[in-house]
């Protein structure tokens, strides 16, 4: 172990804290709760300490003998800041958890695994080589599984299974990528990779390993087309856990993508374009999904997909812009921080609602926020920031990202190349900003301005007592950084960006960016205008309508007044076309049924063929021995006939299978084929047994001794021993023959 021990302590402390908290929780739940807050608080203090050190220059830690592959940690500005953000988020969510989990089971388990996840997440952020990253990445996947599955309801279990298998499968693909890279470059250390890869003229050989690694990191980040688990898993987790999953764990994936992009493909346009394309799709897709969704936490999860898309767009632009990428670098990093903090605030608001009414459907919860200023403030801070309204923190980062696209368009114009594609990206960027405005407005108006006809009085009766004071502190603390960042961008966000950019080998922009100049405000204004248009002409007209009967538990005031005959009331409708569900339509059937089915079919066929082939060979050889011994010649004919029958049956089976595939779907054929194989080999088995039996009986007739004199009740025992004896004697026979052969050989040589 060499280097700065405080880095190692950052990882070990929460893990040790987890064990202690578990032990404490067995005795005293209250002390456990406070102790885990203390763990997170000390972690935050330590992270701040490390950040002050790392601000002066990167600090390292190595433990070469660990696990046979070594552990390498490093902290620079970005890593240090992310450790601070992570531990801050853990602290606030843990403060909030005390009330949230009050009536839950398995709280000890939750605390244990949440603190372990903190340890491993910090490990991912601090890792200085890919193996260390992979180590913590995998452990993080497993411990966070417990966070997702916590309430153990069927949707949670299904989502958790999807999550863990996605994470694991993509993690294995990533492992292959890492190993290929290690084989190619001889190292997996980020800094060394940067030096080596920068010196490479032709980077095409890096593409395949990098792509494989991108699968692993991208899946965790929620990148298209691997995002499918995210809208399933994040909403089913308890709200504090959702905040961590959305806010921090996805960033572990993003950090990996960033590390590949900036170390392996530093200033590489081709790779940048790939990330940009994937990022753009992710960004638009997440926002559209969010617009159509009706469940509060699910909207937030879809929004996470979309915001990760924004970050990936920035990452892609870094590669494309090359030496001019200062804005992209800063925008990417600032948007990461913003998104973490925003999702913390928004998910905690969702948690506060869930604590009180155990509902998250927009139709059920609308009007809940009326007359609750603290909730209103916290939500508004998050919402304004994620919408990118000027004077919010999100505005700054989105403007930087937007400007980086504009800058690239100018660059291409300067070179006289076509800018059509990038103009398209720019407009998609602004359009997605509009979608963001629209879906956030949808939640905001529903929660805080519309009234709930059925339950409004109930909601109003909560007054200020919907949360305990400590949870309120956590709630306000979660939103507090956002206005500070937004109102003082030059004093807060610029220094943050200065600290963070060294991770991406970035540098400060040539001239300072004036965030509030008209040219920069334009993008935000376009987005807001588009958003308002979408909200009023699409959300209110198309996505709202008369609810089907029986779903009108809560109804908007205006809509209620217009409600037509039969009491069918206006509310939010699920208009998302079912056939567009990538998970249900493609992944589940493909990976859940078709591939395993086919694989199993194939494997079973080959396996049984070998097994039964051996049996038949054995039966034939034993029978042949008996035939020779007993001189029963006509049985030879029988064996020939048996062989022929086997061949015929096999042919018929194959024929039926092929016929079946042409007539029916693959699924049917797999099940049918499975049965056929089973039946076929059962028949073979029976035939071989009958044949063997016939031979033995025939020979028994010739011999003196029969088993017919054995009393019936001891028949089974005799049969058993007879079986053992005959097999032993057969084995000894073979053994003897072999030994004899060997001896003859041995002696003949000497």
């Amino acid at each position, binding site marked *: 172990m060499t280097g700065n021990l405080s880095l190692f302590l950052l990882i070990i402390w929460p893990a040790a804290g987890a064990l202690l908290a578990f032990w404490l929780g067995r005795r005293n739940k209250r002390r456990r709760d406070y102790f885990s807050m203390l763990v997170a608080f000390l972690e935050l203090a330590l992270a701040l300490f490390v950040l002050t050190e790392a601000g002066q220059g990167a600090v390292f830690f190595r433990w070469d003998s660990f696990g046979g592959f070594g552990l390498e940690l490093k902290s620079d500005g970005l890593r240090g800041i992310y450790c601070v953000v992570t531990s801050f988020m853990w602290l606030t969510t843990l403060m909030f958890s005390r009330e949230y989990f009050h009536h839950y089971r398995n709280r000890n388990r939750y605390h244990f695994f949440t603190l372990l996840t903190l340890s491993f997440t910090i490990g991912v952020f601090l890792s200085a080589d890919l193996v260390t990253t992979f*180590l913590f990445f995998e452990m993080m996947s497993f411990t966070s599984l417990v966070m997702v599955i916590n309430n153990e309801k069927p949707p949670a279990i299904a989502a958790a*299974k999807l999550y863990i298998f996605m994470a694991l499968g993509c993690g294995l693909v990533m492992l292959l990528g890492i190993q290929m890279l290690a*084989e190619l470059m001889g190292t997996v250390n980020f800094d060394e990779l940067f030096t080596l890869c920068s010196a490479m003229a032709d980077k095409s050989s890096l593409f395949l390993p990098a792509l494989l690694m991108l699968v692993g990191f991208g899946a965790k980040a929620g990148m298209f087309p691997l995002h499918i688990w995210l809208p399933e898993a994040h909403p089913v987790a308890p709200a504090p856990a959702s905040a961590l999953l959305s806010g921090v764990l996805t960033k572990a994936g993003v950090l990996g993508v960033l590390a590949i992009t900036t170390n392996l493909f530093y200033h590489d346009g081709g790779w940048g374009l790939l990330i940009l394309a994937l990022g753009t799709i992710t960004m638009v897709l997440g926002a559209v999904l969010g617009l159509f969704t009706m469940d509060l936490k699910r909207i937030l999860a879809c929004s996470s997909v979309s915001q990760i898309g924004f970050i990936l767009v920035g990452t892609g632009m870094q590669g494309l812009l090359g030496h001019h990428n200062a804005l992209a670098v800063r925008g990417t990093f600032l948007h990461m921080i913003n998104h973490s903090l925003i999702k913390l605030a928004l998910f905690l608001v969702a948690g506060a609602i869930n604590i009180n009414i155990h509902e998250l459907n927009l139709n059920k919860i609308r009007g809940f926020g009326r007359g609750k200023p603290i909730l209103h403030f916290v939500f508004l801070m998050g919402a304004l920031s994620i919408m990118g309204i000027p004077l919010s923190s999100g505005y700054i980062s989105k403007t930087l990202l937007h400007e980086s696209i504009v800058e690239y368009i100018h660059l291409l114009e300067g070179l006289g190349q076509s800018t059509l594609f990038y103009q398209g990206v720019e407009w998609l960027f602004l359009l997605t900003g509009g979608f963001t405005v629209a879906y956030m407005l949808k939640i905001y108006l529903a929660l805080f301005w519309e009234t709930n006809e059925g339950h409004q009085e109930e909601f109003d009766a909560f007054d200020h007592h919907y949360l305990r004071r400590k949870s309120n502190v956590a709630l306000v603390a979660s939103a507090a950084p956002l206005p500070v960042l937004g109102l003082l961008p030059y004093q807060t966000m610029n220094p943050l960006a200065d600290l963070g950019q060294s991770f991406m080998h970035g540098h400060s922009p040539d001239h300072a960016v004036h965030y509030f100049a008209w040219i920069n405000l334009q993008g935000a204004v376009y987005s807001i205008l588009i958003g308002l248009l979408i909200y009023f002409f699409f959300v209110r007209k198309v996505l709202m309508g008369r609810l089907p009967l029986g779903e009108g538990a809560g109804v908007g005031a205006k809509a209620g007044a217009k409600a037509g005959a039969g009491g069918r009331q206006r509310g939010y409708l699920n208009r998302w076309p079912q056939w567009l569900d990538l998970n249900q339509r493609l992944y589940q059937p493909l990976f859940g049924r078709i591939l395993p089915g086919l694989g199993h079919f194939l494997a079973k066929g080959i396996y049984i063929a070998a097994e039964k082939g051996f049996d038949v060979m054995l039966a034939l050889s034993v029978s042949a021995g008996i035939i020779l011994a007993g001189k029963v010649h006509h049985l030879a004919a029988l064996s020939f006939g048996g062989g022929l029958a086997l061949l015929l049956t096999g042919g018929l089976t194959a024929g039926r299978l092929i016929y079946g595939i042409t007539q029916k779907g693959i699924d049917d054929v797999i099940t049918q084929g499975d049965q056929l194989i089973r039946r076929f080999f059962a028949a073979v088995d029976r035939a071989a047994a009958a044949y063997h039996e016939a031979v033995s009986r025939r020979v028994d007739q010739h011999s003196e001794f029969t088993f017919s004199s054995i009393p019936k009740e001891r028949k089974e025992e005799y049969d058993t021993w007879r079986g*053992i004896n005959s097999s032993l004697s057969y084995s000894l026979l073979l053994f003897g023959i072999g030994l004899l052969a060997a001896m003859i050989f041995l002696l003949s040589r*000497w």
Partner: protein
Amino acid sequence: MINETMILALSPLLPFGAALLLPFLKLEKKNYKLMYTLGVTFCNLLIAFYIVRHLQGRSLVLFKITENMPILLRADGLSALYLLLASFLWLGVTLYSHGYIAHDRFENRYYAFLTAVLGSLMGLGLSGNIITFYLFYELMTFLAFPLICHEMTEEPVKAAITFLIYSIFGATLVLVGIALLNGLGDIALFSPGGILEPAALEKSTYLIIAVMLMLFGFGCKAGMFPLQAWLPIAHPAAPAPISAVLSALITKAGVLGVIRVIYYMVGPAYLRGTWLHSFWLAITLLTVFLGSMLAFREPLLKKRLAYSSVSQLSYILFGLAVLEPTGFTGALLQMVSHAFAKLVLFLCVGAIIHQAHFHHVGELKGIGKKMPVVMWCFTLSSLSLIGIPPLGGFLSKWHLIAGALNADIGIFSWLGPVVLLVSAFLTAGYLLPIIIDAFFPGADYDYNNLTNLDPGWQMKGPLVVFAAFALFQASLPSRLVSFIAAMAGGLMGV
């Protein structure tokens, strides 16, 4: 004449003697039996330690069949590994058996054969030439037979017969192979890098068939396609501790045989690039896939683990088939980590069967709440088997893949890693649902009737120790890796 090398003979003879003595001792009280068998096993562990520390490279001739063919014991790196592994695991299995086989009709027979099999394993590890190896190999097969059919009902007896027939068939192939190989080199001593005389290489068709026969002969014990079918039949039928040692050590005897033949008799240099090399690689990958795929859909717990063993054992064989130092290191690491992980898994399943009488995967909902210790051990070992870092299985998989990527084996260079990773995913697919069901039984689970079903200390102790080993492997293996890597370097002249 007494000298230090006599201790080599003590290692197999002590368990044999103790086993022969056991029926005559009239150890009526259960504790005496426990102390006797544990004492013998523990002494054996001490002897193994002594051999590993002090007798490295020494050999002892027991007797000679012909003038040039001695029955020879010899301690080298590979035998050190196998000796320590076997004698350490045996200690736990013996202790566990005292919880599992309590008051059984055939208790004495069980302990006698259990101890005797240990002797044959020690002999296998210490064998200095192929004939000695073959003798102990056959001995092991016959001694394991009564352990598999221990319950004496129809299924175990049939299973034991299947085991026997397959094993003898495999061993016969080996014998024919030995006979063919004789004369092409001095088969009286294993020597690193091979024993072939240069002149022998001209008779290569003759030679390659000998190698193939021996490969598939030993491969039979190690569950290599097409002679793999005995594993899923024998494992579920045997008592749990026996399934565990079958999977963890007896099948590894086949692996040991393969290493001895390929690396100590034929030499990797000869095999590299021949058709048999590609064929062997293909067969191992096929077995890896078959085993995992069949385990994935198998509802019977022990059978699922047995299929899993088929797959995991071929990981080892794949690492050996790569014929490259890193792959070899991976193979031996996999041998160690699989032995520990599979042993614990089988013992856990044994505990579940013994305490809760569940045999099927579908019955395990909430078992983690009733048997927390057992299921935690199960979880750790499963994660190690899947290859989650920093547990043992990860390191071996890392080396296996690195070896395959590094070796010059054409298409298998990338097909191998892909198949291994697909199999790792399937491993997760057949183990994780058990764990998820066990620990997350659902919101409507009845917590009121919860009774702790964790077994007694005799069964729990070995479980916890061996499962903890999976965790501590995180800091152990650098010595293990350098030890094995040095051996691999010696074998392949790097």
